[in-house]
């Protein structure tokens, strides 16, 4: 594969251009069951190659899933054509970094497919054992991915990365009388043996069972606590707010707020790919630069956005080495692991809402204004009682929400993908519509 990519890089150079190639291949297995029978068994192997080419300060991108010589010739030809029709971009360049980095996170699994099949086929019985009201598992499955990525640039940067992950997911459907309830969750791990299947059974069944007894909340304003997975949904939905690219594109509400308060004073936000407890660690960014930990918000004050070399150059600031690029996409900016650290904690003894499920956050949000509105399920904690509720909506503004909060416990908890680490927080005065 490397020979093929090196030949393509030579072709790019012959055209008097610079460029970088991203090659990705993966092997996947996916299993799911219906009742006690295996209903889906999916195996695959895929590959894709993408070229970003710069000629005369113009950028062209092309990609292909076919890797025969004709397809590779066409790849270079299309990138040249696309570049020639593009506008001049004086800020985007190919990194001058050189040298080879090997980033290997593959771990020998040693578990055969039959064992995995047996585990998936036995899942429904585990749910039935846990709660006889489980009628079915409409969504369930196990998946594993082994990925190989190779990056090559005309300046001589070579980055080779291999990684893997396994996932199991389930959504039990519980029925009692005419009431039905579900709860979906998934687990992710580097090795099969790390997956705690029984934890998934217990958590999803217990929560679905709780919502069989759900009540309606009164419409009003509440103090709200979110699960870390729900907070991660917010950070993903509003990821553009941390991005230097969205500043360049003039769609970032914080574009003039560097040096000003954007989060609560007690909070500091750091991006750190090397965090030990995180699921993924990347040595280099999408341009081939080494990643470094970066403080974005310190004691509530915005210090910097995430940048790649082009956004940094255009805005006249330092690169933070957060470039991202897929085979078929333009150069972008993205986070690695976010760690939200708290300086102080506060006592809190009032009633509050704990939200464990949000539906429709992505379609119900405005990335520019920070406004959001979505369906929610959770618990009302009041006078020592924990009362489940459903059929409610939550509305607010993410940017305001991150200022109006109290930290209850500074110790950090992670989302299920282990990429966001947050202290325990209560968000004040959020609107919930129910009855």
């Amino acid at each position, binding site marked *: 594969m490397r020979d093929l990519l090196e030949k393509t890089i030579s072709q790019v150079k012959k055209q008097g251009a610079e460029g970088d190639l991203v090659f990705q291949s993966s092997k996947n297995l996916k299993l799911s069951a219906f009742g006690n029978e295996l209903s889906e068994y999916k195996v695959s192997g895929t590959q894709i190659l993408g070229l970003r080419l710069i000629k005369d300060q113009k950028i062209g991108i092309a990609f*292909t*899933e076919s890797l025969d010589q004709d397809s590779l010739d066409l790849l270079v030809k299309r990138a040249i054509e696309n570049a020639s029709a593009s506008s001049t971009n004086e800020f985007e360049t190919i990194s001058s970094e050189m040298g080879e980095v090997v980033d290997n996170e593959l771990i020998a699994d040693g578990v055969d497919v039959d064992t995995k099949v047996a585990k998936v086929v036995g899942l429904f019985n585990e749910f039935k054992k846990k709660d006889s009201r489980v009628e079915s598992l409409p969504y369930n499955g196990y998946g594993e991915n082994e990925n190989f990525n190779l990056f090559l640039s005309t300046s001589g940067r070579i980055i080779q990365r291999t990684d893997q992950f396994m996932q199991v997911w389930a959504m039990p459907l519980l029925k009692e009388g005419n009431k039905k309830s579900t709860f979906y969750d998934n687990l992710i791990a580097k090795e099969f043996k790390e997956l705690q299947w029984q934890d998934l059974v217990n958590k999803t069944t217990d929560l679905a069972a709780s919502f069989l007894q759900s009540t309606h909340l009164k419409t009003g304003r509440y103090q709200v606590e979110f699960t870390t997975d729900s907070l991660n949904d917010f950070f993903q939905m509003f990821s553009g707010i941390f991005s230097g690219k969205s500043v360049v594109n003039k769609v970032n509400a914080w574009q003039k707020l560097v040096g000003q308060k954007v989060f609560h004073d007690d909070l500091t936000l750091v991006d750190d790919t090397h965090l030990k407890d995180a699921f993924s660690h990347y040595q280099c960014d999408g341009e081939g630069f080494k990643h470094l930990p970066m403080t974005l918000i310190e004691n509530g004050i915005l210090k910097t956005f995430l940048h790649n070399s082009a956004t940094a150059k255009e805005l006249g600031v330092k690169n933070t080495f957060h470039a991202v690029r897929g085979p078929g996409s333009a150069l972008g900016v993205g986070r690695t692991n976010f760690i939200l650290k708290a300086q102080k904690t506060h006592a809190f003894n009032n009633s509050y809402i704990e939200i464990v499920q949000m539906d429709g956050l992505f379609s119900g949000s405005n990335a520019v204004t920070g406004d959001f509105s979505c369906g929610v399920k959770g618990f009302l904690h009041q006078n020592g009682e924990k009362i489940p509720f459903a059929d409610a909506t939550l509305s607010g503004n993410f940017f305001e929400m991150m200022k109006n909060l109290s930290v209850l416990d500074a110790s950090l908890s992670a989302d299920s993908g282990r990429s966001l680490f947050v202290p325990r927080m209560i968000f004040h005065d959020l609107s919930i519509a129910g009855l």
Partner: protein
Amino acid sequence: MQLVSQSSISEVISEGLALGADFVDVFIEKTQNENLTFKSSKISDIQSGTLFGVGIRLIKGDQVLYGYTNSSQKDELLRITRMLGKRFQTQKHSQTVSFENLKYPEIGMLKVKSVSLEEKIRLMTELDVSFRKDKLVSQAVVDFINKEQHVEIYNSEGLYAFEKRPYIRLMSSIVMQDGDLSTQSYTAPGARGGWEFVEKMNKEVMIADLLQQARTTLYAKPCPAGKMPVVIDNGFGGVIFHEACGHLLETTSVEKKASVFWDKKGEMIAHPNLSASDDGTIDSEWGSLSIDDEGMPTQKTELIKNGILTNFLCDRVGHMKTGHPRTGSGRRQSYKFAPASRMRNTFIEAGPHSREELIESMGDGLYAKQMGGGSVNPATGEFNFSVREAYIVKNGKITDAVKGATLIGRGDEIMSKISMVGSDLSLMAGMCGSVSGSIPTTVGQPPLKVDEILVGGRA
């Protein structure tokens, strides 16, 4: 032109049958993509590429095995087939399969118009200039998506079918700012076709609508919260039916009894004023297909007639598991997904009322003029969707614009609360994500009155 030789495919299917499969099909796809982005008044990205892959499905009893690869080499296709087939642990006598070309009516034009990159960039430039004539517009982004999906489908019953599916979409979004206030609005018309769709578009109306939508939401107050009657306007308003009912009528959910409607065929599931269909045959419509991704000619499927559930959307596996007739609804994003029963162009049929009659009859409530996206849990029927442009209605009159509204409810409950159906039916392109990936679908409806729904807003 065949993407992979028929003799190779014949060997692959024979091998699958010999390994114990009752049924084998092969889906071959080659898709050419071209995406242009015009941002900050210049062309910022041009990307183009080719996707190619082969998906092989083996079915035995209720068990579905699926594999895919980017290779067209016979040895690799046989390797995938054997890897799948060994799960069956049975052997049958090998049989030779020969194929017959499927004849079917072609949906849309056989040849579509294409133009140069320069012509596309010229149009994007014109749109950008038009948007920026409004001094409150701080950013405008125009994306142009052009795709041609060439599919070939073979199966062990001797079927060979192929289709070229051209798609075109022009997406515009603008950011408007006035002091500390800001908002974003977008529109994304699309069609199965080529440049002729762009030529026929009324661009002046599109530009005016987008600017008006942004200006309205820029100064809108937060939406009040609580249960109230809502009039949902036509076009993308059809997302309510798509989410609240359409997904629940796909046998992908029905076969697992994971739909609240799984046993309701022939029963009243909606208000008697409501009829709905899913039609894959509408000329040049975004969700239209000549054949589905299992090689069955597509059709118009009546789903609900005067409130009674008449049909489900059914693919081959859905038919095997439920006995409901196949409807040419087996769809997938690409060769990376096994097909599943999915919607095509789904809409509520036109009724007798004018928009004004609906609004006047509601007293106090909400007029949802433009809808956003949404999602549904088919097992419980719980759905949600967002409203992009909405107005408060007082005493049957439209008053203040409001923002930040979400509508939530349960499909089986909401369908009986659609009490009045308007006459002005229109359709709108969208993308639908589900078990077999993200596919082009059209939603549509005339204006509707829902007697009561929970509106999420500011308390």
